[in-house]
């Protein structure tokens, strides 16, 4: 075996792999390993500091990433075409990094209530984040699959992280089986595409059948191939699971409810965004010649997703399920953006802006949820929010801003996201989808408002009768790092609604 490793091979390996291009991912991986090393090296009393290392390390990385956000020669393929770097990829990197930082921060709050190993949590989050970054930039099905599975397996563990809680484990099992099923679908789709694209009997067949660019060329040469269609459909089904699009959204409330709150946030934001990054790459690049297939499917999925998500959320009392179902409807809105992106470049910027706004708002809400939730993470009812405005105006305000942004209420960032999506959709002529979107927005007002109502309007909960026990969990006091973070999230949500500045220019100019 070693004899095969000739110097030429090593040279070839060195020449084809540009490790520098993936320094953020590498840095994250190394940081993740460092955490494990630190756990072994440091005395037990210092273990509490390890999360700080994780967060600070990521902050430094974020700073470095932003410092050199638009390096020269950005648009290129590396690793023999496994990866494609682009400005969108850069955006997604930053996006995942920010969400990872926030998840780690929420983790510190949530894990403090549990007697569980901590370092592994951050390690997992970091590795998953790195994998998501690669996923978003993948240009090849092998890398896509491997990165996706890394993300998925990481999430299996994270979802069932509260191993003492049967609900967390049940959520883990459900996620595991649905995830594995969707992975299988995705994989079979990939296989079909590989088989058909590399088939020597077909025109335009390619040796690089799993490379997106090559696949694109092949599909363009074979406009109506059943196997290719079947493959595309299966891949889309797999991705639809990730983003929670109808009818592959059904797992979401259960898993969201059972998972630890920070993990739910991670699932809701990063995992969904990763799905969208992949979906965008696939529909716009790999499957672009089959737009006649993908666009109707995605359109119908978008409409159904918006409607289902909103309607199912309407009467929900468990806030985690609620936010999960609302996330489903957001996926629908984003899908509109994806559909529009097929014909309108602006839509791409709209989707990314929407994601950014969604990140800020969702983490704001989850931050509040983490503080309102008791030790039993899964039972978070709307009732628990009664009186929040009186007891803790700060949390209530952050919650209001976050929910308002999710509902798409100006002047918050979520509204701008919706606006851009709408403009893009209008430019793309997606009038039926816009109609559905409006219906969705109007329905969604009901439950978002219901939540705000719970926190604000019913502030004056009747004093407890004698012998009655307050079934609401005790609220966690807001420590300063979490407080600052939540404040920043809310502030950014407001600011981004008022003033998009160069961020808006950068995203929307294409």
């Amino acid at each position, binding site marked *: 075996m070693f004899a095969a490793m000739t110097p030429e091979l090593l040279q070839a390996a060195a020449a084809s792999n540009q490790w520098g291009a993936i320094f953020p991912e590498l840095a994250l991986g190394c940081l993740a390993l460092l955490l494990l090393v630190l756990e072994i090296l440091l005395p037990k009393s210092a273990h509490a500091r390890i999360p700080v290392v994780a967060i600070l390390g990521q902050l430094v990385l974020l700073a470095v990433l932003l410092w050199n956000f638009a390096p020269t020669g950005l648009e290129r393929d590396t690793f023999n075409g496994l990866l494609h770097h682009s400005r969108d990829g850069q955006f997604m990197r930053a996006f995942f990094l920010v969400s990872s930082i926030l998840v780690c921060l929420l983790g510190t709050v949530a894990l403090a209530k549990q007697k569980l190993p901590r370092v592994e949590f951050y390690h997992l989050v970091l590795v998953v984040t790195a994998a998501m970054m690669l996923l978003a930039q993948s240009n090849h099905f*092998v890398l896509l699959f491997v990165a996706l599975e890394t993300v998925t397996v990481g999430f299996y563990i994270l979802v069932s992280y509260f191993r003492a809680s049967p609900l967390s484990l049940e959520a883990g099992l459900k996620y595991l089986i649905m995830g594995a099923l969707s*992975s299988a679908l995705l*994989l079979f789709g990939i296989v079909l595409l590989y*088989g058909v694209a590399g088939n020597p009997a077909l025109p335009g067949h390619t040796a690089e059948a799993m490379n997106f660019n090559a696949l694109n060329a092949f599909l363009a040469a074979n406009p109506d191939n059943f196997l290719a269609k079947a493959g595309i459909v299966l891949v889309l089904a797999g991705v639809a699971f990730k983003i929670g699009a109808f009818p592959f959204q059904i797992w979401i409330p*259960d898993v969201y409810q059972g998972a630890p709150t920070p993990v739910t946030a991670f699932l809701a934001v990063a995992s969904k965004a990763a799905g969208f990054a992949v979906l965008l790459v696939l529909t716009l690049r790999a499957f672009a010649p089959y737009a006649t297939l993908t666009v109707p499917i995605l359109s119908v999925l978008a409409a159904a997703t918006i409607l289902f998500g909103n309607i199912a959320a309407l009467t929900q009392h468990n806030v985690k399920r609620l936010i999960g179902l609302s996330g489903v409807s957001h996926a629908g809105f984003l899908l509109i953006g994806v559909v529009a992106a097929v014909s309108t470049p602006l839509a791409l910027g709209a989707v990314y802006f929407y994601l950014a706004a969604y990140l800020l708002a969702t983490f704001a809400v989850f931050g509040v949820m983490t503080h309102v939730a008791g030790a039993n993470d899964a039972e978070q009812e709307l009732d628990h929010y009664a009186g929040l405005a009186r007891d803790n105006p700060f949390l209530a305000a952050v919650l209001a801003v976050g929910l308002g942004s999710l509902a798409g209420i100006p002047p918050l960032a979520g509204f701008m996201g919706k606006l851009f999506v709408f403009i893009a959709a209008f430019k793309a002529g997606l009038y039926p989808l816009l109609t559905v979107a409006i219906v969705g927005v109007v329905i969604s007002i009901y439950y978002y408002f219901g939540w705000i109502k719970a926190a604000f309007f019913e502030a004056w909960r009747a004093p407890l009768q004698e012998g009655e026990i307050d079934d609401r969990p005790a609220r966690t006091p807001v420590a300063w790092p979490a407080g600052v973070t939540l404040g920043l999230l809310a502030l950014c949500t407001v600011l981004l609604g008022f003033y998009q500045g160069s961020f808006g220019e950068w995203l929307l100019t294409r």
Partner: protein
Amino acid sequence: MNISLNHYLLLSALLFAIGFFGVLLRKNTLVIYMCLELMLTASTLALVAFSRYNGTMDGNVFVFFILTVAAAEVAVGLAIIVALFRLRQTAQVDELNALKH
């Protein structure tokens, strides 16, 4: 009749379908998990066949990764099932419905 790519493809699809059906049908989480693995291996069969008939290596290499990933997945999955069994004394999915509505 010579064995062609179509045969392999069909067999692979059949395996995939059986696996899917198994997931639909069985109540035991362990068996469901086996069925899921079956679906993965069905894919590998198609992959190998395609690789052979297309004359490219990628498919075969991909199988490597699939097997690795599947192994990791199995490990984690079984861990979850075991942990859950410890808490709930069951491995039947219809008894695992504390999360609903």
